[in-house]
């Protein structure tokens, strides 16, 4: 066994188990090789130091509640973003229904005009919102 192979096996041994045959060959190499013996010793010291050093940290007890708070904020924000659209659609439906009930005009005309106006005012509202967002961004 060469020193390079022996050192690879030594390192492998820290990551996972090496089989018995390889272990025996490694031990017989190390018994005769001072360099590989000191390499293994250095790696053992390093491994122990790293194991003691890298201890898993714990999340604080407030982690969950803080995250839940942020998620609730996100949900509220999402609703706020949809609210103008929902109100607009609701307003369009109410206005069209009121016209259908009280105006002496053919229902087909009321619904066509209602849908067209709802769509047109939605486009206007969207353009207005983008314009406001641009102004805020400046």
């Amino acid at each position, binding site marked *: 066994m060469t020193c390079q192979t022996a050192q690879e096996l030594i*390192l492998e041994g820290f990551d996972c188990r090496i089989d018995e045959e390889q272990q025996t060959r490694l031990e017989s190499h190390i018994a005769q090789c001072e360099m590989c013996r000191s390499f293994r010793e250095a790696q053992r010291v390093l491994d122990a130091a790293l194991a*003691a*050093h890298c201890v898993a940290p714990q999340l604080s007890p407030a982690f969950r509640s803080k995250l839940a708070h942020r998620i609730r904020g996100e949900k509220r924000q999402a609703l706020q973003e949809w609210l103008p659209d929902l109100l607009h659609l609701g307003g369009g439906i109410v206005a069209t229904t009121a016209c259908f009930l009280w105006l002496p005009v053919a229902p087909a005309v009321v619904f066509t005009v209602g849908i067209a106006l709802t769509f047109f005012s939605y486009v206007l509202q969207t353009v207005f919102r983008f314009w406001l967002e641009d102004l805020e961004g400046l």
Partner: protein
Amino acid sequence: MDQDIRELLSQRQKDRAFEVLLQRYQAKVFRLVYSIVGNSSRAEEVTQDSFLKIWQALAGYDGRAALSTWIYTIARNTSISHLRAEFYRKTLSLEEAPEPFAKAEPVLGRIEIERLLTGLPDEQREVIVLFYLQERSIEEVAAMLDLPEGTVKSHLHRARKAMATKLEVRR
């Protein structure tokens, strides 16, 4: 794996799915983030950001990648963005200086180990820290960093060799 979460998602029970996911992955994601940012309070902040992003994107998860891979990718990207932002801000106060990875008294000095770890290339440092945080599971480290197991081993070996060499030189 994670079939229960996928089922909850397919039933449109996003909040319940997220609750199960959080329970299963919060500690692992925290360790992954910690191995990248190297400071527990900052790691907690970045873990919060990661889970918020996961919550926002959960309804759009299409199941093409394993859920764990998807989660770890979001956590890694969030950590890297955080590091970049930190780098540009350059506000490394004394309070925010990287903290040691543990409080236990090691065989080698704490500062010495910290110095050895800091001297490693980022990917080697992340792999070696995560290896010990994940109780020496190469499989888990490979999944978390989205690397083949062979690459994880090779990073580990290089890191161990480099650290041992530096240690020899200093003595």
